[in-house]
């Protein structure tokens, strides 16, 4: 149900006054609903003077296209009794196994940023935020949320498209910081810590830009096809920085550093393009069970092989910088290792100097 909010009030007032609104009258005006820690939930809350207490209630009161602005503080199981039944608490949904269900194409952003705005599932056996509608905008740069205490931080469901997720911090969720199913979603400027997978992509055509995955088991994992990852950083994850199967993924200008096992692991699939990335200080730099091309990357300082080709195929890895002007080899350069029958790697010509990598730090 939509409430009578300022934007709509103006339209009604003008209509009552007999003003000709023309085409405007046919188009619903997007409204802004407010949520705050001093709000009170009701079927009409959301105006600036009467904010809702829970994001769930604000979503229920909103219409597609509306914007929900959330003040700083805590949202979730406020009294910590595990029940989510007290006044102002979020309304977990069985349908999405999530604490906050976003089932309309709304924009949800915080007023004070992720560090000050905490969505805490409190150990609920589900995801903190479940997005079931296409076109949702969840967070923006400096206007995101902290997502914590769930099985997943944020889950974009299958069948959706065109969802934007930005400026959020997912920490201490069990399985996934951010999970994107469906197609054509964009995740930018988010950070994921302390989950099994910082970011997980399924289905097709997602874009991840400028995100940080640090201190997870796997930083970025993806399957499906045609995902674009650019300008992301995966560091200090205990297994892999980037790990993927499927086909036709493009990775450019990313950094994989100090991941314990493998920096970038193309486990299977074909047609991957890996260009302009930096891969340093990992166990193995990049391992290839699938096939693709590598160029203009900086690959050095990894404990074992800078590149481990175990695909059983020929891989084109020309024009990369291996840590020395002389190409791949012993320390301080990284070497190229081929394992299994049919595995071969073309590295010449190689770059004689480091390539610029355009990854931008989050802070």
């Amino acid at each position, binding site marked *: 149900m939509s409430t009578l909010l300022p934007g709509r009030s103006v339209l009604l007032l003008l209509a009552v006054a007999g003003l000709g609104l023309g085409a405007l009258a046919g188009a619903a005006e997007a409204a802004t609903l407010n949520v705050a820690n001093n709000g009170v939930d009701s079927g009409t809350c959301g105006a600036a003077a009467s904010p809702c207490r829970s994001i769930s209630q604000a979503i229920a009161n909103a219409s597609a296209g509306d914007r929900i602005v959330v003040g700083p503080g805590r949202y979730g199981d406020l009294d*910590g009794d595990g029940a989510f039944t007290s006044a102002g608490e979020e309304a977990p949904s069985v349908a999405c196994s999530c604490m906050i269900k976003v089932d309309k194409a709304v924009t949800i952003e915080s007023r*004070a940023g992720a560090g000050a705005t905490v969505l805490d599932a409190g150990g609920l056996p589900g995801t903190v935020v479940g997005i079931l509608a296409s076109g949702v905008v969840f967070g923006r740069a400096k206007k995101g949320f902290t997502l914590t205490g769930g099985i997943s931080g944020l889950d974009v469901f299958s069948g959706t498209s065109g969802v934007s997720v930005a400026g959020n911090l997912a920490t201490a969720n069990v399985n996934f910081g951010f999970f994107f199913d469906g197609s054509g979603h964009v995740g930018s400027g988010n950070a994921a810590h*302390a989950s099994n997978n910082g970011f997980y992509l399924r289905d097709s055509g997602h874009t991840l830009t400028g995100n940080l995955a640090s201190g997870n088991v796997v930083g970025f994992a993806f399957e499906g096809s045609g995902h674009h990852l650019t300008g992301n950083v995966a560091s200090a994850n205990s297994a892999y920085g980037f790990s993927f199967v499927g086909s036709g993924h493009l990775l450019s200008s990313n950094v994989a550093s100090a991941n314990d096992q493998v920096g970038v692991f193309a486990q299977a699939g074909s047609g991957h393009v890996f260009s302009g990335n930096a891969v340093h200080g990992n166990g193995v730099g990049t391992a290839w069970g699938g096939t693709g091309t590598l160029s203009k990357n900086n690959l050095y300082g990894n404990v074992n092989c800078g590149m481990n080709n175990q695909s059983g195929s020929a891989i084109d890895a020309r024009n990369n910088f291996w*840590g020395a002007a002389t190409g791949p080899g012993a320390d301080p350069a990284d070497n190229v290792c081929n394992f299994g029958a049919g595995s071969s790697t073309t590295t010449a010509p190689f770059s004689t100097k480091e390539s610029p990598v355009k990854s931008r730090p989050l*802070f």
Partner: protein
Amino acid sequence: MERHLRNVTRVWGLALLLTGAGLVIGGPGAVAEAGTLNVANNGVDSPTCGAAATPCRSISRTIANANAGDRIMVGPGRYGDLDGDGNFTSPGEEAAEVGVGCFCLIKVDKALTIVSRAGAGATVLDAGGASVSVVWIQASGVVFGLAKKGFTLTNGGREGVLVEWGTSAVTVAGNLARGVQNGFIVLGSGHRFIGNVASGNGGTGFAMGGSGHLASGNLATSNSVDGFVVNDGVHVITGNMTSANGRNGFFLSGENQLTGNIASANGSFGLEVLWGQHVLSGNAIHGNQSVGILLGDGTSRISAISQNNIFGNDPVSNCGLWNLSWPSTISATKNFWGAASGPGAAPADNVCNGAGSSTMTAPPATKEFKGKAKPLF
């Protein structure tokens, strides 16, 4: 130690060239020119490493090769126990002092500027689980990290960064401490901590002792104990965020200024003042699981608590402020308690007084103050 070939030699080379050509270029080198030394994951440690073409592998080696005033530029990758064998003896590993000396992975004992080339996320100082501080600063004037040029500090059994007693004017900026005991411990005087993140540490995010520090624009989140512990004084704590920590957002004693900070969703108090005389103004205290602001029994000299937003705290007691400063009256006028009518029942926060304590709240602010804390991302 002998000064070795690095970028700075280009400056001296130019000076010699000009001198040889008969040009006068001022005094005869009375002031040493600061140089830049480089560290990278494809570097090789030696007593002469550090030039752009011959970077060092370890930051420790570079510090040994540097002179006060030099800048050290660190490339992306891992620094620490590179082969994970629990020792720090293999080539290129940091010169950690485990169980002796500084109990640290990297000791900064000269007034250097140490920055990363690719930012904190990409540049990892990994103590490999050893019971050490990741970085221990024992010289005045050190700059460790800058905005978007900091480090990740992780896997140490002690602090991410420890600034030692006796130091002054150290700047620590743009760093991420995660998976250590305490994120940042700041002693000495007149240090600046700007735009750092302490997240998921076993103890406290930021702890300060000594005098006259500035902490601005930092984020302490999801640490097991407190976000910020501020002792002694007079420290300026402004524009920071502390959230989702296991205990308090801020834990305060001494004589300090807290302005424009946000404490939200912490497991206990948003702000606990143990004792002392502080300025508490322009802060936002919301959604903490216990009381918003707790004034302990040594806080009777607090002059004023004003222009703060205090609401949404403690769903059980509904106390935005709990005054245990007995025996005294605390002034807490011109705060916004969540309702235009001032402190009271939910959705406002109330003011609770212990026996013998009283709090003056009138006039309250009738609307929310605009927050000044700037999110890091």
